[in-house]
């Protein structure tokens, strides 16, 4: 019973113009198992999922469910075949109630009219069963992202799905929410649902998954039982090489004393009502300043206030010890700042524009409308950064939307490096990015700092911060509460500071 196969994908191949996204990939899912699908960006995880759910047409290969051949032409058809997907961005209607969302498109009816009473009653029952703490009648947008995701899962479960696909569900959740989600996943597992779990977080894989399938460059590397595959092996399978430079990149760069270095940017009582309480901050040449705190603690809000993305309403900002008014991003750029935003899709890439246009955009904006860059100048700049950051793109005129997440992020980094900033702000630059690119970005940050750039670095992964940062601001509830340096910088030290170590 335990080993019963639910889903069997065999010899799946899928090509896009210029790229072979999947080549002869096999994937199996058993009843009641949580199966991690791992791989770097562009390895073919999303493509495999999209072929399975009918977003992309099946080009070659066989998909069998319970031994029967199926072909899905649309996500709706996949749903009828009992395959449901919950994406990172929840695909529900925020302005409808929780109950309405649960039964959208399959409302219980009475005499042809929607039976509201039973909708709400049924919804409440489902929520209670899955221990989701929201009311059936409240609007979905009032629920936290985590709860919205669980509601999406509940909807899938109630539609009696046999295969549940969770595509990066944990990227925007905090630890508490993640553990709730895992509890729900384990519940479903017991009920016999096969779960495909796509994630970048290694720890989570080892926490909940039974098996791991690894893809690389659109090819199957192998499927393993979790206990047979130690972490370091998993990483090397994903990257296709022995992987040892992750641990000691920081030791490449000698620890320096930054206290005497030249101050680049200093904030005094800078704040913005309702988002960040007044704070002081100094950043010096060549240092990497970390901003640590839980999601929503104000770490993004702090840098946004400095950069002028949200106009601060109190305090002063000094650039090179001269008071500077920064009301818009353009002001900040002109005083040598650059800002890589947290939400790449919403605030970062201009999806339809080409790689070249995305790279030169910030410099062009800084130069102004009446000094357009020459064709040759733009092409050289784009090619230069495609080369040094190893951006994988067919060519510089490819729309940036067709690149994988990690490469899109590199395009945005290129955009800012081109403006030659003195102070680079990176807000979650490695979120949702494969391990290989992650390491590259961390190395790049240290390299840039070594060349004298001041860098502010925000990340949810403490390990990553420890590897890169020389000093750290601790944020809690929209307030800067602490500043750690030297040997205070340890996993425990940071945790304590974030949690509030006084008592």
């Amino acid at each position, binding site marked *: 019973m335990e080993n019963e196969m639910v889903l069997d994908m065999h010899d799946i191949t899928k*090509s896009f*113009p*210029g*790229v*072979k996204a999947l080549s002869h990939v096999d994937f199996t899912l058993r009843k009641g198992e949580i199966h991690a699908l791992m791989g770097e960006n562009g390895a073919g995880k999303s493509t495999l999922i999209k072929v399975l759910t009918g977003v992309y047409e099946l080009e070659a290969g066989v998909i069998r469910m319970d031994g029967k051949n199926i072909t899905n032409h649309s996500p709706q058809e996949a749903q009828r075949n009992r395959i449901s997907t919950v994406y990172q961005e929840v695909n529900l209607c925020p302005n409808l109630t929780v109950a309405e969302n649960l039964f959208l498109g399959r409302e219980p009816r009475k005499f042809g009219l929607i039976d509201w009473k039973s909708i709400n009653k049924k919804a409440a029952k489902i929520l209670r069963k899955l221990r989701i703490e929201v009311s059936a009648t409240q609007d979905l947008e009032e629920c936290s992202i985590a709860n919205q995701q669980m509601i999406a899962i509940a909807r899938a479960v109630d539609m009696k799905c046999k295969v549940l696909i969770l595509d990066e569900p944990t990227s925007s959740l905090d630890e508490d929410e993640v553990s709730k989600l895992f509890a729900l996943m384990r519940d479903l597992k017991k009920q016999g649902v096969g779960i495909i779990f796509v994630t970048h977080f290694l720890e989570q894989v080892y926490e909940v998954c039974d098996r791991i399938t690894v893809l690389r*460059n659109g090819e199957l590397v192998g499927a393993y039982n979790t206990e047979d595959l130690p972490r370091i092996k998993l990483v090397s399978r994903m990257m296709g090489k022995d992987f040892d430079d992750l641990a000691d990149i920081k030791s490449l760069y000698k620890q320096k004393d930054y206290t005497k270095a030249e101050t680049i940017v200093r904030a005094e009582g800078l704040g913005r009502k309702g988002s960040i309480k007044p704070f002081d901050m100094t950043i010096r040449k060549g240092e990497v300043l970390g901003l640590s705190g839980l999601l929503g603690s104000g770490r993004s809000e702090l840098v946004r206030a400095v950069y002028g*993305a949200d106009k601060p309403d109190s305090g002063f900002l000094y650039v090179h010890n001269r008071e500077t008014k920064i009301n*818009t*991003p*353009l002001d900040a*750029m002109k005083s040598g700042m650059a*800002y890589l*935003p947290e939400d790449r899709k*919403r*605030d*970062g*890439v*201009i*999806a*339809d*524009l080409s790689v070249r*246009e995305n790279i030169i*955009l*910030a410099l*062009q*904006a*800084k130069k102004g*409308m*009446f*000094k*357009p*860059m020459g064709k040759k100048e733009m092409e050289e700049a784009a090619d230069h950064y495609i080369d040094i950051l190893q951006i*994988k793109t*067919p060519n510089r005129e490819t729309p940036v939307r067709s690149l994988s997440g990690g490469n899109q992020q590199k395009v945005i980094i290129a*955009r800012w490096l081109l403006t030659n900033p003195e102070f680079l702000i990176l807000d979650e630059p490695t979120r949702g990015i494969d391990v290989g690119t992650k390491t590259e970005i961390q190395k790049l940050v240290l390299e840039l700092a070594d060349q004298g750039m001041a860098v502010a670095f925000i990340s949810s992964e403490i390990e990553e911060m420890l590897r890169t940062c020389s000093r750290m601001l601790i944020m809690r509830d929209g307030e800067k509460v602490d500043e750690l340096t030297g040997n205070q910088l340890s996993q425990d030290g940071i945790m304590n500071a974030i949690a509030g170590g006084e008592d």
Partner: protein
Amino acid sequence: MKKKLKRLTEMNLFMPVICLLAVLLINVITTPGFFRITMNQGVLYGYIIDVINRASELVVLAVGMTLVTAASGGQDISVGAVMAVSAAICCQILSGGEASVTSYQNSMILAVIAALAGAALCGAFNGFLVAKLNIQPMVATLILFTAGRGIAQLITKGQITYVRVDSYKTLGGYLGKSPVPTPIFAAALVLLVVWLILHKTSLGLYIESVGVNSTASHLVGLNSTMIKFLTYVICGLLAGVAGLIASSRIYSADANNIGLNLEMDAILAVALGGNVLGGGKFSLMGSVIGAYTIQSLTTTLYAMNVSADQLPVYKAIVVIVIVTLQSPVFRKKMKTLRGKGGGMRKSKERAAVKGGNQV
């Protein structure tokens, strides 16, 4: 050869050009003398000259509409009414308040500048509503769509103001001994100026960037609000130019009829040009081709003795066909049909590209 053909069919302007050619083909079949051009009393005559001449206002409007569409992801439906406002201002100043004059009462330059300023002001009003107050473009421009002709009536005091001076007819007629109608030059000039602005400054890139993602554009230092506003001002100004051409043709300001329903044709021209009405990347040439397509269609139908009242029906049928041909769903279908034939070759190509990537 096959490869060349494929690249050709994948070009953005491919479908618009094909549509234009198709309409022209129908023209030649129904009106054998369609492309015949004759010289009569020192000026050129012929259906094709007529099409290009009559399309001038539409071309000018379509250029402005393209920019507005690209930056704000919406359309300015007030352009027809703004044409009437501009014509009214110009004629009223020239006539000095009279209903009909045979000589200018005020300077021509003053009248033209005032008319264009008025039109640009209308555009600025639209731009303020859309860019600053974040009102949906269709709703914001609905205000001047309804009020514009009323304002024009107020300016002309409810009458049709005639300016019966030969030099006033130049813009809509002929310049000196030139055998080619002036509107053609006017449209070409507008196109050239806008093209230069878009390519000699980085406004073109800014407009596309804001149209695709306005928050991200703001964060790289672009003033999204200002750029959207600017496109509406340009659109208003160009509607003013179109109004002057139309007014010069009939040497009068007819508030009720100048530019009537032309806003819909302008939007259609943008769509026929293969531009996405939701904003983002745009093709100016596409819209211009779209404008000429619409005008040749209109001329054909007139030549086939379709009455003006029934014209929209036939136009609609052709538009349905053209829009379907260009729809993503249809194109995808065509692609898969074609793909079945060339599957082998393609996969080889891909393998080669992939090999190149790995190096």
